[in-house]
């Protein structure tokens, strides 16, 4: 299997291109490009800022970059990966941390995958139901954080009816890009449902809003995080 074995040791730092035949084991630090015809194992202590192309990729360390494998990618427990994954077979184990886009269409170009995300999503589930299910469960934990911020505007809505619909529209476009790269389309659906239900609440309670129309700012404060709100208001004032 391996006509050559290369090891990048723990105290070793490589900046540049690393290409070759055979297998590679990285324990150290690599910045640049890794292209190997064979298996690449990134051990626990490895720190990689590189685009990686190989036959099989096994990750136990930290990687920022695009991973592309002809055969399979395995994200093992304890790994931290940020970047796109492209492989016909993919396994994300419990305890792995991952953020990025996954493409499991064989031979699909990156640009093609980006333009037709919705088409690639069902294909992923069809070809790899088990892997997609696991990845969905892992990825789903990350987007759960922004979710509370979205339903929050509906609570503030009764107090400020005229401004609220505009704000809701302004807020909606932001979360949507986060939703798109996720393979778990089922997670996204209930969230959209909440946002749509929000306008109904405002319409049903216009009287309360007119009464307390003079007190718009206080309820907005708890709705958004302090830093977020400050940034939004500054932009509004500047424009």
């Amino acid at each position, binding site marked *: 299997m391996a006509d050559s074995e290369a090891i990048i040791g723990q105290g070793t730092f490589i900046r540049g291109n*690393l290409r070759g035949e055979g297998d590679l084991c990285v324990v150290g630090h690599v910045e640049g490009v890794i292209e190997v015809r064979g298996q690449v194992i990134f051990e626990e202590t490895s720190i990689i800022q590189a685009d990686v192309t190989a036959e099989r990729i096994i990750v136990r360390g930290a990687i920022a970059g695009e991973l592309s494998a002809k055969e399979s990618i395995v994200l093992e427990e304890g790994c931290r990966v940020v970047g796109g994954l492209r492989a016909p077979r993919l396994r994300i184990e419990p305890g792995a941390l991952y953020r990025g886009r996954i493409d499991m269409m064989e031979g699909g170009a990156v640009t093609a995958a980006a333009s037709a995300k919705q088409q690639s999503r069902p294909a992923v589930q069809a070809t790899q139901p088990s892997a997609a299910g696991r990845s969905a469960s892992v990825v789903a934990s990350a987007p759960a954080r922004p979710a509370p911020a979205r339903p929050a505007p509906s609570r503030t809505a009764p107090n400020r009816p005229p401004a609220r619909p505009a704000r809701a529209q302004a807020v909606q476009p932001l979360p949507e890009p986060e939703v798109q790269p996720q393979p778990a389309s089922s997670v996204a659906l209930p969230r959209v449902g909440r946002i749509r239900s929000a306008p109904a609440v405002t319409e049903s309670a216009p009287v309360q809003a007119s009464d307390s129309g003079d007190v718009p700012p206080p309820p907005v404060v708890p709705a958004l995080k302090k830093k977020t709100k400050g940034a939004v208001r500054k932009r509004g004032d500047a424009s």
Partner: protein
Amino acid sequence: MASTVIGPGITIEGEVIADDDVVVQGTIRGKLTSQDAVIIEAGATVEADVSAASVVVSGSVTGDVQAADRVDLQSTGRLVGDVKAARLTIADGASFKGNVDMDV
């Protein structure tokens, strides 16, 4: 297990910085630095400036070699470039072209 091994099929273009031993069986272009020994085995190609505590050359090196301790040019070794080291050995059969600075 040696800390870092650049296998025979591997090519690195860029910079390699290591704290401990580096064994080169493949190709490195750019720069190679180690706090410990660098061993360039037969069949390896290094087109780089090499800096290490000690350097053993059995393969082909093009570039300046600097060693805190010693440079050993083995019989299969080929070295084109300047050598700066406290000690230098050149085995019978080795080929070498360049300047030598031994801190005389």
